[in-house]
């Protein structure tokens, strides 16, 4: 983390410091990629089991991620127990446990198995779940910007975390978060009205409320740490998320996961590679070493890691409604046109739920 930060700072310094000039460049990159990418994580908490299968795509903005559909996916433990997963009905390529109560158990060792519709089979190395320290505190720090009209104004919040690292070394952490947003409109459609060219949004209210949208981090979400530099001390002000200000309290669930050294190395490689921008201060690219391989074709490249972790979880409301400093409102605008007669069901999926969030109190 520190190393990356240092390299990054150098890069940034250079980028900013000179009269830089950036222009498009046509790089000679291949037009097809083979292999399989597996993002998979099982945990000790309900609702935090997810497996996603996709094909790596061409390195272009326009390229489409192709989901691997209709695969047989299951997790096995050392005792020979098998936990089957099935594909999500809404989100292609996402696989969820058939038994929604499935949770992994600390100390146990698990393996991931995949059989695709094309009859290719894959298997992961075993991963053992180690216990994780509890979260001591989740808190926020206000973030201010200089607005040309209002001067110094509140713009948003940094969500931070404190925890106590255990005395022994070799603890690896990964942090993630989920934001549950109770919604009134379950569908947004476009319509082009008569005599007009621009489409307008039509929102259909939810037929069954309450209904929550589940938002997870979508950009630069690898948040991992090794206790090498802090072993046995308090980990404080660990950055979790950055949220904008809006006059509505914000519900967030923060997960602190114990991961294996292999998972840590994998995530760090992935993070370093995605930060690898081609600058002269980049390090040479590393190979992506996952723990999943193909049984049917050993030559096939399989990217991804089967992560099995213990989770400590805390859900909090971040106070955004009771602020006594000047602030910029950065709420999502309400729908333009509401269809009061139509309604749309709240369909259970990886990103929407009718089930009340664990720490929801309002």
């Amino acid at each position: 983390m520190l190393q990356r930060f240092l390299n990054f700072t150098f890069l940034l310094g250079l980028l900013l410091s000179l009269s830089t000039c950036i222009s498009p460049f046509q790089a000679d990159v291949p037009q097809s990629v083979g292999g399989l990418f597996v993002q998979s994580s099982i945990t000790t908490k309900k609702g935090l089991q997810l497996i996603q299968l996709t094909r790596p795509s061409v390195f272009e903005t326009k390229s489409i991620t192709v989901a691997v559909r209709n695969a047989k996916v299951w997790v096995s433990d050392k005792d020979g127990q098998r936990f089957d997963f099935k594909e999500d009905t809404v989100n292609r390529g996402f696989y969820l446990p058939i038994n929604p109560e499935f949770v992994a158990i600390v100390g146990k060792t698990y393996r991931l198995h995949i059989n695709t519709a094309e009859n290719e089979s894959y298997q992961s190395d075993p991963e053992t779940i180690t216990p994780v320290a509890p979260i001591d505190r989740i808190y926020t720090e206000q973030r201010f910007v200089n607005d040309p009209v209002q001067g110094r104004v509140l713009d948003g919040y940094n969500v931070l975390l404190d925890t106590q690292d255990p005395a022994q070394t070799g603890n690896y952490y990964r942090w993630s978060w989920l934001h549950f947003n109770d919604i009134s409109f379950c569908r947004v459609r476009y319509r082009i009205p008569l005599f007009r060219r621009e489409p307008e949004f039509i929102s259909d209210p939810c037929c069954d409320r309450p209904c929550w949208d589940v938002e997870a981090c979508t950009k630069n979400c690898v948040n991992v740490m090794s206790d090498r530099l802090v072993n046995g001390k308090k980990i404080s002000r660990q950055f979790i998320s950055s949220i904008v200000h809006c006059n509505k309290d914000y519900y967030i669930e923060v997960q602190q996961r114990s991961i294996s050294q292999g998972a840590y190395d994998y995530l760090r490689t992935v993070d370093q590679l995605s930060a690898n921008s081609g600058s002269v201060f980049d390090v040479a690219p590393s190979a992506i070493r996952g723990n999943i391989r193909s049984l049917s074709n050993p030559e096939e490249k399989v990217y991804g890691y089967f992560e099995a972790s213990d989770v400590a979880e805390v859900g909090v409301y971040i106070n955004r409604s009771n602020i006594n400093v000047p602030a910029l409102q950065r709420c999502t605008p309400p729908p333009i046109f509401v269809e009061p007669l139509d309604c749309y069901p709240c369909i259970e999926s990886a990103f929407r739920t009718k089930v009340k969030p664990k720490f929801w109190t309002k």
Partner: protein
Amino acid sequence: MKHRYFKFLLLLCVLSLFMADLSAQGNRPQFFTIYGTIGDSISGEPLDGAAVFIPEKKIGTYTDKKGFYAISVPPGDFTIRISLLGYNAKSLPIKVDQNKILDAVIIKDQKFLEEVTVTSSRPEENIKSTESGVSKLSIRSIRKIPAFMGEIDVVRSLQMLPGVSSVGEGTTGINVRGGSIDQNLVLMDDAPVYNSSHLFGFFSVFNPDAVRDVTLYRGGISAQFAGRTSAVLDVKLKDPDLDKRSIYGGIGLVSNRFGIEMPLIKNKLAISLAGRGSFNDFLFKLGPRSIENTVANFYDLTGKVLFKPSEKTRLTYTGYYSYDVFKLPSDSLSSVDVNASSSTFKYRTFNQTLRFNWFLKDKTSLTFSAVQSRYLANTAAQDSSIAFDMDSGIRLRSLKGRYFSETDKNSFSFGAEANSYVITPNQLVPGPFSNLRPITIQEEFARELGVFIEDEWKLSKRFSMLAGLRFSYFQRLGPDTIFTYRENAIRRDENVSETTLIDKGESSQNYSGVEPRLSLKYELNDNTSLKMSYNRMRQYIQLISNTTAALPTARWGSSDRNINPQVADQVTLGFFKNIKDNKWETSAEVYYKLTEGFPDYKDLADLQFSRNLEQEVIQGQGKAYGLELMLRKNTGFLTGWLSYTFARTLIKVDERFEPIHNYAGAWYPANYDKPHTVNAMMNYRMSRTVTFSANFTYSTGRPGTFPAGKFEVNGNIVPIFPDRNLQRIPDYHRLDLALIIDPNPDRVKKIQGSWIISIYNVYSRNNAYSIFFDLNPALQTNSYKLAIFGSVFPSLTYNFKIGGR
């Protein structure tokens, strides 16, 4: 001019006749020796290659590199005539009745002034000298190379020579014949310089006001130099003037310079002090608001004291201090979710050299020097939770002695060198409220001893040989913890089979070896020669860096039980031909170099905080080969050179490192592998006061690794890099122009001012500094070219000098 050449050749001819005569002469009556030094009347600098001739006896000699000469003559009254190309000849009467010292200065020929610009002091030097691959640039010729932002840069100007390249504009150091930057021994008055760049590599650390000349040895490296596998860059500083006081300086876009030179005891003791500093934050203040608080400054101070108690002894002290600071403003980072808001990078060099020369008798001298070199780098962040202060550095203390003796046929020397190193890897000290743990990595202590013997032997008029042998011994000292790993296992903590603790001062590992050096020259005729050289070089300390361009904060590491020294063997073949009375010099050299123990690093190497570097370093093989062609015009109103270089540099690590290295088992190009380079440099003296100069450079783009595909992990777009350095960024080319206006070439006015107008990147080419990849949906394309010097940079520099001769 023709006339002058004719005289010069005549002199040579007479001289060679005399040499033949001398060897034939038997037991003649008593002879006396006349000796002394010949210097430049203005700078007082010793002149190399001046002819000292006694017409009455038809005998003569040339001065050596220190301006020293000695002639044996029978008793009598004679005239001594001193001449050198570009200077007015001078005749002095002398009565010889005993051994005599005769020092003299000669005055530059104003008609000739500035016409001779390039390197060799004797035009046929490239034919006659035994070694190949040696280039010398005087500061006067460096000043004529158009400079970026008007900042005369010793290191950058070397990149105009064949075989010298860098990773990119504004990166640290130079790469010589396929060597990495730490494989060059950079010496400033005998003291090694561990980082030759200011501000990450935009400018070099050498103050042009203080430098006398720069010699780059890339082929035939003398046995007196050792410790690096690639090249030696020997920067010599000017001696202070023992006679006249002068003040000089300059005002430029980047830095301002000021210097003073004054005799304290006339003809005995003199001091010079030259300072340079950038106090304008490198123009950040003019930039956008987000960067206006960036601090980026440097300064350096160069001082030299010369004490000459007698004609036969000289004592000099050189002190050098440089300081760089780079600080980012606080708000530039908060927008990108980095946990720290501001950080500062500082680095400094402090070098000292004490050197004593003793001229025992004619052409025999003893030199002793004591050197201390220190380099310190510091990184700091102020944010309370992760506040830290991190230091790394290296300190060298060295003693050297060298005996040199020259006779008609032999130049013989031998010497010894003892070095002591203390390397401080990164030491992290957390701030008062910081969550970080302090990190202390054991300092590395090491010793290096070397003895050498060398002889340049002129076997015949046409054939000469420079043979040298060096023996080096390296000892890594305790305290040290040595891990023994299971055989052929990947070096990881879990594969350690035995741990050995070495106490302070005890030897933990030693290495030794011979380093033969050989250069041969055969002259096919007076204008043509063939040369061959072979070098073996051993390197015991290296820079630990795995970024494309090295960071100034990278740590150094020494060889130990698990990290072997680097050993390089280089063979060079050269063909040299001068045409039209040495007016044109041409040369062609080919080289092949193989390095064992070339450092590479494992994937995700932790170089900053590793306590066991052998777990991060993978030693592989380096292979470099190339062809260097050069055409140079040395005299006339138009001078300059044109060179073409073909060079390849490849690295390979063993297949068994496949689990920790993404491209093991195959050769891949080094980061600075640039196969084709063309350099053209031209100076045109338009009038006595105005010189126009231009340079053009073209090179193949450096290698890069472009992604073959992508996938997304937790919102991170992860590029797939299947190989290493097999693609290339676009080719590089650039034209620079400069106009040097010296309104007062005769140096008669009290204040001599001169102007340098330079234009860097005249046709404003958007040369790629790097190619980067970013999948931003708002943009049309996914790969971008970043150019940092992507436009034309004009600049104006004013230099002045008050006093002096």
